[in-house]
């Protein structure tokens, strides 16, 4: 199996596991983080369709990141589940500190930022540093989910 297709398959499977872990954590009351909702509301303010759009977007992102992982593994000439897990942990850190906390609010039309004033209406509260506004365990949940995702992609990619 080529690097591309193994990364594609690993990305899909990894995203299934990551999404399931995060959704389960939310249902168990560990976090208010809902990635599908967060991503979907960038496209629509209809709560019903936002989650559908968000899941599609999340899977596309999951596969796209897996292809980047695959490219990295191909460049260094080897791969393993633990290296994938390590990259997943780094990705979680980047996601929580920069991607969702800083970059997403900058382009998301409905998410609040620290600068949002009375002349704007934010429908989604800002995630805050390490997304802690969504619950104190949010970063831990995100970290575990991304480590699982990275490990699956690292395990699946055939260099």
């Amino acid at each position, binding site marked *: 199996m080529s690097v591309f297709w193994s990364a594609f398959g690993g990305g899909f499977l990894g995203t299934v596991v990551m999404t399931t872990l995060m959704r389960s954590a939310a249902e168990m009351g560990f976090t*208010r983080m809902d990635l599908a909702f967060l991503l979907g509301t960038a496209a629509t303010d209809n709560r019903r369709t936002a989650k559908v759009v968000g899941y599609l977007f999340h899977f596309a992102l999951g596969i796209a990141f897996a292809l980047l992982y695959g490219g990295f593994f191909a460049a260094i000439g080897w791969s393993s589940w633990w290296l994938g897990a390590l990259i997943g942990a780094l990705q979680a850190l980047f996601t929580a500190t920069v991607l969702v906390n800083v970059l997403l609010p900058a382009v998301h039309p409905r998410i*609040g930022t620290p600068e949002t*004033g009375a*002349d704007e209406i934010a429908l989604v509260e800002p995630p805050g540093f390490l997304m802690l506004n969504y619950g104190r365990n949010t970063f831990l949940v995100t970290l575990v989910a991304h480590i699982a995702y990275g490990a699956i992609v690292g395990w699946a990619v055939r260099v």
Partner: protein
Amino acid sequence: MELMRIDGYARIEDYALIGDGRTSALVALDGSVDWLCLPNLDSPSVFAALLDRERGGTFELQPVDAFEAARRYLPDTNVLETTFTTSTGVVRVVDALTLPGHGLEPMRELARSIEGVSGRVSMRWRFAPRFDYGRLAPRWERRGGMIIAGCEGESIALSAWNAGTVVATEGDRRGTFELAAGERALLAMSTAYAEPLIAAPRRDVEARLGHTIAFWKRWTDERHYEGPWKEAVRRSALVLKMLIFAASGASVAAPTTSLPESIGGTRNWDYRFCWIRDSNFLIDALLDLGCYDEARSLFWWFMHATALTEPALHVLYRLDGGTRATERELPLSGYRQSRPARVGNGAVDQLQLDIYGALFETAWLYSKGHHSLDHDTGVVLARVANRVCDIWRCPDSGIWEVRNGPFHFTHSKAMCWGALHRAVRLAEQGELPARHVDRWRKESAAILDFIDTRCWSESRRSYTRVAGDETLDASLLMLPTIRFPSHERVRATVDAISRGLRHDDFVYRYRVDDGVPGNEGCFLNCSFWLVSALARTGRVDQAASMMDRLVARANDVGLYSEEVEPANGTFLGNFPQALVHLALIEAAIAVGKRS
């Protein structure tokens, strides 16, 4: 207008609020900014002279010579204009927390624009920030023409144009200047938190001030209210807009902490949280005034904030949706020595059953306001309705958050009935899963039976404060608002409260021990609830004349605190209070619809 400071403290009614949807400041009639938290409404203060004249920090701006002051909000805005008249001339000061819109804006910006109107007036200013509720003195620097007060990751810069030479004294920076008719000066305070300071040029500050005035006028123009007491309702709407934290849509009960319920007393609480029951009233008011976007934002926040705890609800949430609000005392002397000054709120851990009714009333109103509920929200609400069935028989701390309970409060039970009644209606409309509707119907009937058999006093001809009791409770004035059945008993209860708890136009919550030492004034929301209850039970003329008198009780810029001292009308408690302004709007609409 007469300015009175007692032991260095302005009267609560001598303050006006300015805000930008992120934070807010209280400006005294004599031009002192005595309360400002940065960067957000619930952050630690940098100006807290309101709670400690010596250590709290302040930003003074006033004539050097003796003066008289008059003020107003610029029409349909939250921008304050104070006119100082001295023996030598007149100056006008415009204060605003500006909104982004022109140039590279600072994280937060307080603009103080001064204009000579006639003659020549000597002015003085004193800039004395103290960080973290007065605990930390600033580290002073002078860079790029700005006075910079720094502390850990936070910096405040003051830019002064035509405002005199800056003089450094221990703990503050100050200046004096003279303005003739037509001359202008400007003081701009900008804030940075974990980012570099912005050195804004004067033209950008002035442009943002103009933009801010224009925004507020536009926002007010878009509100639809054609009923009676139009000005009071519009001012209340503007106040409420300042209390909404724009980044999340949540709303604080008041922008202050620890303004006392009696001078020198201990009933001093932090209101910079979002109470679920206030959100119910707020959504109602927002929808009535045509603020559909704000209502939707609040409802989305509401469902998001409760996601961690549902089907159990917390009484209050922080503006970031968190639930920890540990109560602690501040090292401040308190407003006119009313100790302790507190942050956090111990009520967060109480069981208050009425909030379940508030949640369903919110969902019901939101749904009626042309917003259908999504499937996930419906599922959550159904779980909450089942929880109401499980817990309504429990005693609780009630709407007044008593600290000597729990008790079987009649109001709490009525709100549980309201929760299940609305849940059934929502399920009938397809907004909630209908699997448990029979249980909801059965339990709501059981609650009605409990209230009618255990909470009615034949001798007082009234529903009582708690089951098996004989005391009155002003919260029962809300029974007509939630459309509680048993109309004759509801009407009799309104009359009994009017006879037993009223002092002129002011209404006490109750007259029994609640587990907190000290006295309290009359809660102004109860007065407006009485207006609404009178109107809803057919006494419209009586309600309208009482409303006229209450509207005249606002301070000079139309604001209300939580309570008044009934003997002299002095304001008490946190200021301005959202619940009072919400009750005013509700009462105006209730009377207007029936006139």
